[in-house]
C-alpha cells in the first residue's frame, strides 16, 4: 500500500496541472482497491477449477504428493479417454442429451403458452391464478416427491425417461412463466390487435407474432432450461435405477461410489469425468452470456 501511495502521484504528475491532486489520489486508490477486491474474489471462485483441470491431467503418483502441485509435471491426456473406457460415459451423455432436449422443448413451449394466456387475455381469477403460479416457486420438491413417485410407479414409468420429460410439458415451471409473461407484456398489444382484426386466430398470433418477437427471452429460458436439466441430480436419482438409463450426473456418482472392475486408481479419472460433465453448461454460458444476465435484469424483477 505504502509504495502505491508514493508512486501514484509521480505517475500522474504531467496531467495534474489544475485539478485537486488529493481527490484524484483518493479516487485512484479507490479504483485500485476495487480492482484488487474484484480480482481476489474472481480468483477465489475460479482457482478450484484450475486446480481440478491440473489434477485431471496428473498421473496417479502425482495426485498424492505433498506439497500438492497446481499443474502436472507430466501431462496424462489418457485420463480423459479412460473415462470412456472404464464406464459407459458416452451412453450417459447420450441419455442426458435426449432428456435435456425433449424436456427443454416442452418447457419452452408450455411456459410460453401459459405466459401468453396470462399476459394477453382477461378472465376471472387471472391475477389470483398468477399469484398461485408464483407461489409454487416456494414449494420444495420434497413435499410432493412420495406421491409423485407412486404416481409414476403406477404408470409404469420408473426407470424410463418419462418422469424426467413429461412434467416439463405441463406449465414448464413458475420462473419461466414469469420471465416470459414479463417479456410479452413489453410487446405492444397493437400488433396482435391488428392481426386479430385481420382475422388471425390466437394460435397464429402466438406462433407468428409473439414467439418471433420474444426470441431474446426465449433464448434466456432455453439456456436456463438446458443447464437445469443437464445438471439435474435428484429426479434421475429417484426415477432411474439401471446403469444403461443413467444421466451424466448420476453416472458420475456411480463412478464415485462403485469400484471399477479393475483395481486401477481412479482419482484423476474421476476429476476428468467431473470436468467433462461440467463443460457443456460452462460453454453454453460463455457463448450466450449476454442473454443470460440481461434476460433477468431487463425483465424487471421489481414487479
Amino acid at each position, binding site marked *: 500500500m505504502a509504495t502505491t501511495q508514493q508512486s501514484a502521484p509521480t505517475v500522474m504528475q504531467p496531467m495534474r496541472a489544475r485539478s485537486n491532486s488529493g481527490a484524484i489520489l483518493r479516487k485512484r486508490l479507490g479504483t485500485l482497491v476495487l480492482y484488487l477486491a474484484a480480482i481476489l474474489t474472481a480468483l477465489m471462485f475460479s482457482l478450484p*477449477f484450475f486446480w481440478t483441470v491440473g489434477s485431471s491431467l496428473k498421473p496417479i503418483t502425482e495426485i498424492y504428493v505433498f506439497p500438492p502441485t497446481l499443474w502436472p509435471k507430466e501431462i496424462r491426456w489418457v485420463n480423459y479417454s479412460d473415462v470412456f473406457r472404464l464406464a459407459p460415459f458416452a451412453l450417459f451423455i447420450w441419455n442426458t442429451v435426449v432428456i435435456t432436449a425433449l424436456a427443454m422443448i416442452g418447457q419452452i413451449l408450455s411456459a410460453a403458452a401459459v405466459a401468453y394466456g396470462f399476459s394477453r387475455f382477461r378472465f376471472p381469477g387471472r391475477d389470483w391464478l398468477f399469484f398461485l403460479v408464483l407461489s409454487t416457486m416456494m414449494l420444495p420438491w420434497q413435499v410432493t416427491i*412420495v406421491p409423485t413417485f407412486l404416481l409414476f410407479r403406477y404408470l409404469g414409468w420408473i426407470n424410463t425417461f418419462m418422469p424426467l420429460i413429461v412434467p416439463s410439458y405441463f406449465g414448464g415451471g413458475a420462473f419461466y412463466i414469469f420471465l416470459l409473461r414479463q417479456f410479452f407484456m413489453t410487446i405492444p398489444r397493437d400488433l396482435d390487435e391488428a392481426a386479430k382484426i385481420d382475422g388471425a386466430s*390466437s394460435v397464429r398470433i402466438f406462433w407468428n407474432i409473439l414467439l418471433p418477437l420474444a426470441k431474446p427471452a426465449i433464448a434466456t429460458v432455453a439456456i436456463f432450461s438446458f443447464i437445469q436439466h443437464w445438471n439435474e441430480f435428484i429426479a434421475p436419482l429417484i426415477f432411474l435405477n439401471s446403469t444403461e438409463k443413467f444421466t451424466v450426473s*448420476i453416472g458420475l456418482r456411480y463412478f464415485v461410489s462403485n469400484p471399477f472392475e479393475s483395481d486401477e486408481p481412479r482419482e484423476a479419472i474421476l476429476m476428468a469425468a467431473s470436468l467433462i460433465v461440467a463443460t457443456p453448461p460452462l460453454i453454453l454460458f460463455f457463448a450466450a452470456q449476454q442473454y443470460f*444476465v440481461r434476460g*433477468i435484469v431487463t425483465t424487471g424483477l421489481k414487479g
Partner: protein
Amino acid sequence: MSTAVSMPRRRRWGTPLQRREAMEGYLWIMPWVIGFIVFSLGPIIASLYLSFTKYKIGGTPEWIGWANYQEAFFKDKLFWPSLSRTAYFSVATVFLGVALSLFAAMLLNQNFRWRAIFRALYYLPSLTPVVSLAILWTWLLQPQVGLVNFGLYKIGIEGPGWMTSSTWAIPSMIMISLWASIGGGRMIIFLAGLQGVPKELHESAEIDGANSVQRFFAITLPMISPVILFNLILGVIGSFSVFSLAYIATNGGPNYATWFFMLHLYYNAFSYFQMGYASALAWIFFLIIFVLSYAQIKLSDRWVYYEFV
C-alpha cells in the same frame, strides 16, 4: 349467442365477447392448471393422507392416525438431530450467503472495466453440476494432500479433517455451498435490484455531504429491501432442502454429522420404503417452511420499504 337482448334469468360474467376471450385465456393456461393439479396440489393432498397411514410399496395404505407423527417427535432418534443440523446449516448459509451475495453485487455494480468477465467468473460455481462440485471439493478439502490444508499449512495452521471430521463436516458443507451460491442467481437478482436504485438519490445525497456508508444504509438498503426479502425467503427454503451435496460428498456421515433432514426423508422413502412415515416427514417439513416464510413476510412490514408512487 343469437339474441343480443339480455334475459335476466341467470347472471353470467361479461359480454359474449369477453366470455370468449376468457375461455381462450383458460385454454392457454390449461397446461399449467393440469400440471399444478397433477404434480403439486394432488401430491400435497395425497401426502397428507399418506402421512396418517402405514404404507409400504406394493401393499395397501393402512390408517394409523397420528402414529407417524408420534414416531417422528418421540421415538425416531435421528429426527430432532437432523432437524437441528439442518437449522444450523440454514442459518449460516442464509445470513452469510445473502450478505456476501449483496457484497459481490455491489462490487460488480461499480463502474470499472471488464465487469462482464468478472460477473462470468463469479457465476462459474453455480453452473457446475452438484456431483462435480462434490468431487472437486472432496479433493480440495482432502486432509493430507488437499489444496486448502496446504494453504493453511503455509501460514502455519494445521488444517482440520474437514469432511472426515464430525465437527468440521457441517462447516465444510456451509463453505462449499457458499462458494457455489454467492455469485449465482442471488447475486444477479441483487444486481438487478441495485440497478433499479435511482442515481439521482445518490447524487443529491452526495451533494448534501453523505458519505458512502451513510448512503448505503439510508438509500441503497431501503431501496433494495424487497429484493433482500425475496432472497431471504428463497434462501431459507433452499438451505432447508439441502440434500444433494451431503448425499454425494459424505452420504450423511461421518457418524451422522451431515445427516440433514432431507437425507432422513430420502432414506425413509427410497431405501426403507416407509412411504407413510416419509410423507409425515414431508408434511412436517412443509409446515416448517410455511411458518418460516409466513413469519418472514409478516416481520417484513417492519423493515421492507415498498415504493408506492
